[in-house]
Structures are given as structure tokens and as C-alpha cells.
């Protein structure tokens, strides 16, 4: 090995490192990070982007150099040098990926644990599911399919899953609890402490929120890209998602699991507001639902089949996913438009 070539190699290595690092840290590919968990995920992503960029450039560099430097010259019918292996080299490039992968594994584990992924409560929730839909002052508690009736279903409850409390807050109740119900093709958010039901998820900034997610028909997935969080809503078992929304604003709630024809239209919003504003919103909802509209007051839900019970919603929603707006009182409607565009 002669000296100039090793200097060139070294320079190339330095440039490669700088470029990878710069791109990895400034890729700007992620949307706004609006929860306390999001920056951890972004840190992990940026690290992986740095490594990936480095490896990508290395591989493409080798291919491009080979194409130019080692292309066969016209008339040259000879073969290349018969090098069949090189044990130290092979050990080196087994060791390098192994080390990278090990490092990434540990880093991912750390992030996942900090987010609450290993909270034993989230993997082992003995509570039964009551997805409540309250409407106009008349509380309609609908036992949802598989929720409480059969012993099989409550066995399934033993493995309620999701992302639970961060290690610091484990064993403590979250500041706000919301029951989330996914149904074709809408999200319904119920605040069990006050009985408020809404088509929009409101959360106080800086407070820990706990979503208990259920599905009434098929599998849906609740995704809030700005929070970097996603969890399937699975019929027959609850899942949970605990996190702290950080930045005030309105963000999309997306259904990420194929759930039927209107899957692409199954959207809602999460409104993160200052705690006082959130409290005011909650009170206004309670008031509105007490003054009430008349649609559901007379219903005796016990005598209704599930399909009958959901019929009024399904009709509206099925025809037009936007119809969900009518599900909750007009006061809440239209007051928040999606003004957050990345």
C-alpha cells in the first residue's frame, strides 16, 4: 500500500463521515415533534439516518468507482486477479454490522423503555373494557363486542397492550384519561370522568394523557404523526397509549390500519391546548350535552342490538366520513380547523 492512496482513502473517510453526520442530523424529514416522546424517537431516527447515509455512500461509492475504474477496456480479454477471500477482511465486515446493530438495539431499547413501552401495566391490564358513548345528557353505555360478556374475551384482556407509563410515572394514574373508540369510519373520544363525548381529541399541554383504545368492528390504528405514536385498535381487547403532549396546536389523528372503503377518510384531530383552555372546553362540552339535542334521549340501549345502536352513526359516517362532525354538539364544531400544516 503506497502512501498517497492511503491519504486519499483517509480524506474520503473524513468527508464521508462529515457528510453523513450532517445529513443525519439535518435531514428535516420528520414532521413537528409535538409530544415529549417525539424528540427521543427523532434522536434515534437521526442516528440511524447518519449510519445509513454513511453505509449508503460507501456502497454507492464502491459501485461507482468500480464502474469507472475497473470497466473492461476494449480488446482486453483477460480476467481480473483471482482473489477468493480474505479472512481478516471478512471478519471485519461481519464485526462492523454486528456492532452497529448491537448499538442500535441498545439505543432503541432505551428509547422504548423511556417511552413506557415496557410498563408492565400496559402489557397486563386486568380491567374490563367499557367503551362509553355518551350523548346529550343520556349516558349510553354500550357493551361493545367481546368487551365484557364472554370469559374468553376477559382472558384476552389480560394482554392489553400498547405504550404505557414512562418509568418515572409508573403506577400513578395519568392526568387525563380518554377512551378512544375506532369504528368504521370515525374516532369517538370519551372522557370517562366527565362523560363528555367528542369527535375531536382535546388534551392539555404538558399533562400526561392516557388513551384506552378499543374498536367496535374491525381493526383500526390510531396514529398521531406529530407525537410519533401509533397503536392498533383491536376488537375484543383494549390497548393503551400513554404520553405527554407538549406543543399547543392542532394535529391530525390518522387511521393507519386498513379498515374498509373509507379508511383514507377516517380522520380526526387532536387539539393540544393550555390546561385552562382545555378545562374551559371540557366545561362547555358538559353544558352543551346537558342542554342537549333530542336525538338519543329516549333510547333504551339495552334493548338494541349493536348494529341498531350504531345505526344512526353508521348512516352518517358511512355515507360521508366528514359526517362525524354532527356527532358532537355544534359548539365544538368548526371551532378548530386543521391549521397545522407541515
Amino acid at each position: 500500500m503506497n502512501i498517497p492512496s492511503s491519504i486519499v482513502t483517509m480524506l474520503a473517510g473524513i468527508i464521508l463521515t462529515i457528510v453523513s453526520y450532517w445529513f443525519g442530523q439535518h435531514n428535516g424529514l420528520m414532521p413537528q415533534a409535538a409530544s415529549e416522546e417525539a424528540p427521543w424517537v427523532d434522536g434515534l431516527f437521526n442516528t440511524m439516518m447518519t449510519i445509513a447515509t454513511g453505509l449508503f455512500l460507501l456502497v454507492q461509492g464502491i459501485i461507482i468507482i468500480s464502474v469507472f475504474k475497473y470497466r473492461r477496456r476494449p480488446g482486453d480479454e483477460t480476467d481480473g486477479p483471482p482473489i477468493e477471500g480474505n479472512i481478516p477482511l471478512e471478519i471485519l465486515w461481519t464485526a462492523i454490522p454486528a456492532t452497529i446493530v448491537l448499538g442500535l438495539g441498545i439505543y432503541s431499547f432505551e428509547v422504548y423503555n423511556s417511552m413506557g413501552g415496557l410498563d408492565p401495566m400496559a402489557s397486563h391490564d386486568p380491567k374490563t373494557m367499557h367503551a362509553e358513548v355518551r350523548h346529550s345528557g343520556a349516558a349510553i353505555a354500550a357493551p361493545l363486542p367481546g368487551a365484557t360478556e364472554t370469559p374468553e374475551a376477559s382472558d384476552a384482556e389480560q394482554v392489553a397492550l400498547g405504550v404505557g407509563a414512562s418509568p418515572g410515572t409508573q403506577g400513578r394514574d395519568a392526568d387525563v384519561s380518554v377512551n378512544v373508540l375506532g369504528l368504521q369510519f370515525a374516532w369517538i373520544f370519551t372522557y370517562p370522568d366527565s362523560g363528555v363525548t367528542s369527535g375531536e381529541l382535546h388534551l392539555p399541554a404538558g399533562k400526561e394523557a392516557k388513551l384506552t383504545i378499543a374498536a367496535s368492528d374491525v381493526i383500526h390504528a390510531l396514529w398521531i404523526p406529530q407525537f410519533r405514536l401509533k397503536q392498533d385498535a383491536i376488537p375484543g381487547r383494549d390497548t393503551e397509549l400513554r404520553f405527554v403532549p407538549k406543543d399547543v396546536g392542532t394535529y391530525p389523528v390518522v387511521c393507519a390500519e386498513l379498515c374498509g372503503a373509507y379508511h383514507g377518510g377516517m380522520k380526526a384531530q387532536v387539539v393540544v391546548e393550555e390546561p385552562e383552555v382545555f378545562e374551559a372546553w371540557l366545561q362547555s362540552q358538559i353544558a352543551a350535552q346537558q342542554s342537549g339535542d333530542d336525538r338519543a334521549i329516549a333510547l333504551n340501549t339495552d334493548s338494541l342490538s349493536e348494529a341498531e345502536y350504531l345505526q344512526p352513526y353508521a348512516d352518517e359516517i358511512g355515507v360521508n366520513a366528514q359526517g362525524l362532525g354532527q356527532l358532537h354538539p355544534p359548539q365544538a364544531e368548526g371551532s378548530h380547523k386543521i391549521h397545522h400544516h407541515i
Partner: protein
Amino acid sequence: MTQVDTPENATPETLDGHHRTPWREYFTFSTDHKVIGIQYLVVTFIFYLIGGALATAVRTELATPEVDFVSRELYNSLFTIHATIMIFLWIVPAGTGAFGNYLIPLMIGAKDMAFPRLNALAFWMIIPGGILLILSFFVSGGAAGAGWTSYPPLSTTGSKAGEMLWILSVLILGTSSIMGGVNFITTILKMRMPGMTLNDMPLFCWAMVAASILILMSTPVLAGALVLLSFDLIAGTAFFNPMGGGDPIVYQHMFWFYSHPAVYIMILPIFGLISEILPVHARKPIFGYQAIAYSSLAISFLGLIVWAHHMFTSGTPGWLRMFFMIATMIIAVPTGIKVFSWLATIWGGKLRLNSAMLFGLGFISMFVIGGLSGIMIASVPFDIHVHDTYFIVAHLHYVLFGGSVFGLYGGIYHWFPKMTGRMMNETLGRLHFVLTFVGFNLCFLPMHYLGLQGMPRRVAEYDPQFATVNMVCTVGSFLLAISTFPLIINAIWSWIRGPQATGNPWKALTLEWQTSSPPPVENFLEEPVLWTGPYDYGIDSFERSDRDRTVNELLAEVKADVG
């Protein structure tokens, strides 16, 4: 200098064009593995074109944020059948059925596959399987629309007839694939020519062993899942239905126990093809033969224990997610070994940049992108964000299109002269490469960004903020559709009119090149001899036969010494 004594030069006149199969033969229940291989290749390619047409329809719908080209229901059927065709009727049968059948007996010096009738049967099941799938668009309720994963309860609530046909079709195709797997393992283990040890086999054979093991271990589980699903669908049982006490997550476990290995069933044979193509056109021995061979087996083993990484956001407990994360990441190691060995193979060679080689190099560079995003999504916290988004659509196409399809294209250019006895046109081949490469990256690279920003997959309508980027993807997909024309024209024209190919136009050393192009019915006119290792480029023939003596006679000498 090293090639003076290849059989091609030794007996050219006995090798050329003497054994061209009459075209009628391709429409019969032929038991010749070469005929079956070509039957597979042509039929699966036709399905690929149909699957591609569906993809173009999907992209046309996605050119604008609104639903305006097809109905929502039809949209779901389009991408469901697109994916099913691409996987079960193109990549799997083309990688194993077409190239496996054509090449394996030739490469190991056998006259045919171990079970020729089973082989023909496996091929002839592909056609009804595919026709059922396509006809399902015309039954009441339309084709299945629950995605190629067909998760219950959604799959049991949609078009019943369409879903049932989907299940039947996949069961038929799975059975065909199992028949193929049995045949490959038996053929490779039992029918190698005398003197060929496992370590003398071309690497494609190793890859086929690894892929066949996966087929045999995992496909029956898929069949089980689908049979149970069909009971839920038509007989009202509740295996997966929570309303009757069933569990939809059990289906996901069973489904992914097959379908994760399935991606290796798709990619392993392609790894094998690439390991054949690169050394020939780089004029260098493959670097790290044993590392590549054994890493196929390692991938095969690891591939069986990582399925739940598709279920990180569904019903998987936290600690189990960690196990599957680590297991998944470890697959990067044997995969990395292969990539680096390929790079070391081309480094310092004398590269012939023909169409086969361009697709081979294109394969490495595109597959690496899919592999790197694969390591990223193995990481649970990151996967929680991007699961079921366009990031995944981008990732899987970099692996399946940039990887598998590029590899198959490379294989077509490389073995076309052997299969047909004619050379392909290089200019059209290069045009095909450039169009595919540009169209592919235009179509799929921006999808990473879409997914990260918040666009879920399997949607007919999306947020208007994603309109521009989606338009770019759609333009890319049209370019991809166009890119197939040079290949089709080239293949048809060259097959009829192309210049005659000699037995060994690339001066390759694996056994399939030691016979005529196309080969005679029983492959070799006389018993083939192992006078060289499969990749002994640059080693002159004297040395080669010297080595051969070492392999075959050393044992006898040692015995003599001991005795």
C-alpha cells in the same frame, strides 16, 4: 488466455441450435425442467404485466388527493390484487419456479429434476390459481379488498365471494410452491453429478436450498391460517372473530409466520442469481464463497423467528417486541456479509457493463437502500411511527422491485442466450435499464418522505399537502410502465431473430455453460466433467485441472499413504 479450452471452443458445431424446442412443446404437460422453467418465466411475466397494470391504476388514482379515478372499494381491490399477484404469481414463482427449474439440474450436472411430473404439476397449478384471482374482479361484491395480508375481521366482512376466491387462489399457489420446494431440496441433495460436493456447487444452488427450507417450514402455516379464515368466512365459525370469542391477533401470528419468511423465499433465489452474474461479468472469482453460502442458511434460520416485527403496533407485549427487534436486526449481519462480498467481487475486476451486469449492479445499489430502511424499521420506537405508512411501501418496493425484480431482469439478460440459443440486443437492454432505474427511483424514493410526514398506506384519498410529491411518484410509475416495452420487444425479437448464441457466450465456468445453447433434452450430450470450480476466473486452466486432481485424487492418495 484462460478460456482456450472451454467446450464451446472445443466442439462448436455440435453445440449450436441443435436442440431447439418446438414451440408447441411449451403448451404441453412437458416434464423437461427446461421447458417448465421457461413456461414459468413466461407465464409469471405475463402476470407481472397484469400486476403492473393494476399498480399503474393505483398510482393514477393517487395522482390527486381526491377519489376520482376508481371507487373506494375498487381501489382497495386493486392494491390487494396487485400485491397478491406480484408476490404469489411473479416474484416467488419466477425466482424459484422459473430460474430454479431451469438452472438447478444444469448447474449440478443432472439430467432433470428429481420428480419431473410433480414439477409439471406445480407449474400447471399456477395458471388456475392466477385466473381465479383475476376473475374475482368480476364476481358480485368485487375482488378481495382487505389487503394481501387479509386481516380479519375486515376480511370476513367485505366481499365474501372475492375473499373466498382470494383464499382459494393463494392456497393453490402455496401448494404449488411446496411441491417445488420438495423437488429442489431432493434434486440438490441427491442428484449432483459424481464428484461434486456441496462446496463445489454454484451459489445459486445454496440459495435455493435455503429458500426451499423456508417454503417447507412456513407455507403450511399459511395454509392453516387461510383454511381457518375460510371457515370464519363461509361457515360462521369464530376462530378469529372476537364477537364469538376468537382472536384476530392469532391470525396475524399465523399469517406472518409464513409471510415474513416469504420475503426471504423471494429474495434468496435472487441473491443466488446475483452471485452467479457478478463474477462472470467481473471476471473474478466470487469473494467469500463459503461466507455467501452459509449466510443463506443463516438468513433462512433467522427468517423463521422474526415474524412479529410486522406486529409491533398490534397485540405484541413489550418484552416480546424487544426480542423480535433484536432478532430482526441480527439478519442484517448475514445480509451485510453478502453485500460486502459482492462489492469485493467487483472491486479490481474487469467489468463487462452489459445489461445483465447493469441490472446486477443496480440490484446491489437499490437493495442496499431497502436493507438500510429495513434495519431502521426493525427498531421498535421508530417502527411505531412508520408502520402502515408510505415509508413501508417505499421500503418494500426497494426490496421487492429494486431487489427482486432487478435481479430477475439481470437473470433474464444473463441466461437468455442459454435458454433460447439467441443473443439479446444490448442497446435495448441498456435503454430498459435506464428507464427502469430512473422510473423506479422517481416512483418510490419520495414515498419514504410521505410516510414519515404522515401519509398512511392503503388509502385512496389523502391530505392535499401530499399532492405534489404523490404526483412525482405517479409520473415515476408511468415511466416504469413504459420501461417494460424495450424488454418485451427485445425478448420477442431476439428470440425469433437474434444472433445465434454459442454454448458459452459469456465464457462462464458454471456447468450450465458447458453444454449447447439451448441444451439438449437431457442437458449434456456426454457426462459432464468437473474440470473447474464454478468461479475460478483468472486461474489458468492448468492450475484448474491441477486443483481438480487435488479434489478427486487427494483422497485416494491419502488412503494409499495410510494403507
